[in-house]
């Protein structure tokens, strides 16, 4: 049978209205989840409205200070002074929208967040001096992606390769020792290895720099890139070291499970070479769960890892989040959470979409 024919048969089997209904259901649910997660963050990040009070008293102070430096104002009678002061405060509070109750404003915040109009940061600025939350986040995003996405893909590749090797010689010496390594490294987070690696490799042995992005400002692009790569090395190694064991463990277990399936036995009985069995019969069914995990891990890696980045003073989104918390910059905190939630939800939706197409059980659901 040719490929086109196969495709047509497959399409006929899909119950299109049922499939669409399934997708619509999922989309509504994910949107609802997104809203709840965002709203929760808004409430917490604004301290349940407390930030508003801080802002109001700040405005009051600003106004009084400005007026007290105005000689014309000081000549006015006292009642007049008070009246002007109060009116200015009221105007400014209104201008910033602080006169509405917090519940109402939180709904506005939610609408803004969901439409990705992230507004302006209260204190933090981008390196270029912009106070737009989007600018601040976009400036940091590449560094998190560079470190953690590279690290996640690298550790998945290493882990999958090691896992395959383990499965091939299951219960051998290599398998057993890797198993222990995997359990130990995957139960310890990367930031923890980071502290120890920094102490040993950077401070004691002096092989790597003690954190940061560059050691000094560069004018030459090439030298800059080399310096960044040099600073990237240790956090990257740490990340790969901390997470490859988990990949190896999972891959090994999935592969061993599939190797016991009848169709693999049949392929063996047919006398196919072991290599061909591994790549054509075992890896194919093993791919979907591993790809799912990889997709979710990469999404999660975009937000960086707050503590790992702090340990290495890596200027990514994780450090940004920590800085934003440190100065209670609610718009930045909310912006980061929303971006993260969006990425996550979209990935899940795409995975749903693909799985529903691939999995006959899901495909005919509701039809």
């Amino acid at each position: 049978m040719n490929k086109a024919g196969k495709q047509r048969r497959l399409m006929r089997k899909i119950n299109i209205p049922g499939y669409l209904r399934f997708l619509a259901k999922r989309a509504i649910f994910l949107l609802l989840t997104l809203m709840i997660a965002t709203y929760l963050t808004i409430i917490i990040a604004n301290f349940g409205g407390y930030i508003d009070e801080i802002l109001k008293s700040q405005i009051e102070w600003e106004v009084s200070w400005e007026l007290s430096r105005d000689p014309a104002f000081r000549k006015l009678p006292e009642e007049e002074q008070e009246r002007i002061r109060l009116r200015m405060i009221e105007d400014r509070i209104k201008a910033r929208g602080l006169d509405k109750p917090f519940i109402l404003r939180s709904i506005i915040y939610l609408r803004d967040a969901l439409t990705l109009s992230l507004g302006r940061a209260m204190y933090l600025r981008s390196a270029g001096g912009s106070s737009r939350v989007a600018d601040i986040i976009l400036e940091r995003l590449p560094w998190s992606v560079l470190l953690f996405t590279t690290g996640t893909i690298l550790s998945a590749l290493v882990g999958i390769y090691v896992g395959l090797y383990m499965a091939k010689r299951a219960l051998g010496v290599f398998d057993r020792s890797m198993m222990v390594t995997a359990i130990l490294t995957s139960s310890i987070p990367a930031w923890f290895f980071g502290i120890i690696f920094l102490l040993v490799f950077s401070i004691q042995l002096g092989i790597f720099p003690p954190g940061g992005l560059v050691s000094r400002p560069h004018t030459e692009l090439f030298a800059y890139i080399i310096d960044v790569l040099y600073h990237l090395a240790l956090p990257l190694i740490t990340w790969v070291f901390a997470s490859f064991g988990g990949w190896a463990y999972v891959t090994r277990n999935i592969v061993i499970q599939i190797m016991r399936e009848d169709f693999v036995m049949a392929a063996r009985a047919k006398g196919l070479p072991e290599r061909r069995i591994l790549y054509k019969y075992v890896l194919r069914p093993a791919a979907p769960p591993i790809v799912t995990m990889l997709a979710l891990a990469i999404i999660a890696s975009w937000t960086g890892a707050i503590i790992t980045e702090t340990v290495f003073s890596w200027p990514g989104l994780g450090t940004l989040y920590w800085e934003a918390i440190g100065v209670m910059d609610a718009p930045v905190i909310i912006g980061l959470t929303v971006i993260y939630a969006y990425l996550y939800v979209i990935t899940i939706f795409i995975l749903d979409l693909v799985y529903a197409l691939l999995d006959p059980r899901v495909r005919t659901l509701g039809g």
Partner: protein
Amino acid sequence: MSAPPVGAKAILKEVLRTKSGIIAIAILAFLVCVVVIVPLYAPYDVVKKWNDPRAWLDNPRCAAPEWVELMVGKKLPRTIKISMEDFRATKYSTVLSHGNLTIKLIRMMAYFDYDYDDFPSEFGIMANMTCLKGMKVDIKLIRPDGDEILLLSKVFSSGESSFMLSSGDSEVKLIASNYVAEVTGISPSLRLPQVILFAEKSEDMWNPSKAKVLKGRYKIVLEATSFTPEDDIDLEVIIYGKVFGVFGTDSLRRDLLVGLLWGAPVALAFALTAATAVTLIQTFLGIVSGYFGGKVDEIIQRFTDLMMIIPVLPILILISFLYRIGIWLLLVIIVGFSIVGSTTKVVRSMVLQIKEEQYILAAVSYGASSWRIIFRHIFPRVLPYTFSLIALAVPSYIFLEAALSFLGLGDPVLPTWGKILGEAHAEGAAYYGYWWWILIPAGFIALTAIAFALLGYAIDKIVNPRLREI
């Protein structure tokens, strides 16, 4: 393949048959011993002083553990304390009067033997006095080679009640550098009294890496002159060493042994409670979801999906920063955020299979209530599996607490391993080479996490038949 064992005892027996199980149980037994020792070595009132810097003044700052000696092969200085009682034992005072002039002379002296291969890290002199009409105080250090160094010669006015002198004071540094100039004729580029005063006379006596320690008996002499018989003075001297105790000290002179020992029950209680509560609640909701099906199932499953998407760690960091909560409230919040999760999903799928089994149908047929079936027939079946989940979840909670403490968001009172580690990082312990301050708490955290991970793995292999075959 035999059926998976049921019941805690049977599982423990099986666990002890595996290598990883034995290692895990051994580490846990060690930790339990630590927990038992804690109240004996450091009762709670010692720990209450953990954040009180005055409680630790007798300890050296950033001192390495004592067993470092074995590694460097040198006798490293311990802290020498000459208490007020020691001085009082040698106190000699006379009152001379002539007409309406009264003079009281006080003299006391104490000595200590210094035969270590390294210099002290600091020294400090404290005095309490009753001074009604003014007092002149001279304090001298007499070295084993006979040199006398006047550390203090000062007239105190009436009403003063105490003074302190330490190796970090600029007057003491000046005295030390004058002494070098007197001996060698050159003025030193580094002025470290704790080195100069304890060094053999040479050109390099100011240079900590070249100077040689002058071993022998040092004397400290105090002479005071005052004008009423009521005046008195008491002296205390501490020569801070470079090593201390089993685990050393931190930059606030705190004995890390106390903090690390107390970290054990705190970490275990926190992580075990969190892991147990979260796993059991999730298991229960998973059973309910799987057993009842229908609307209940739909609600619990959607709620689980929702909670699994919410970014919990950032929110936890946010909450602990804004509200400055203690460790036990944090525990409650963590449990609150994880009443549903991956365990709910796994248990639900297990229950979907279990509830079709004949013994459940039999129970239904003789009229057992749903809750009876859930607690008497389904829960015991799922329980062994939850044991492994609890054990596997413990490390993540240990590290969660450590992570929050590391960021400075931990419990404000109790010392925890993460807090000690975080302080070490914040004070740049790695940079200064205070490795014990980092590696020992890190070792404790890692050891505990590894023990539970191995235990969870061992139980998992026993109760999870799929893994048993492999």
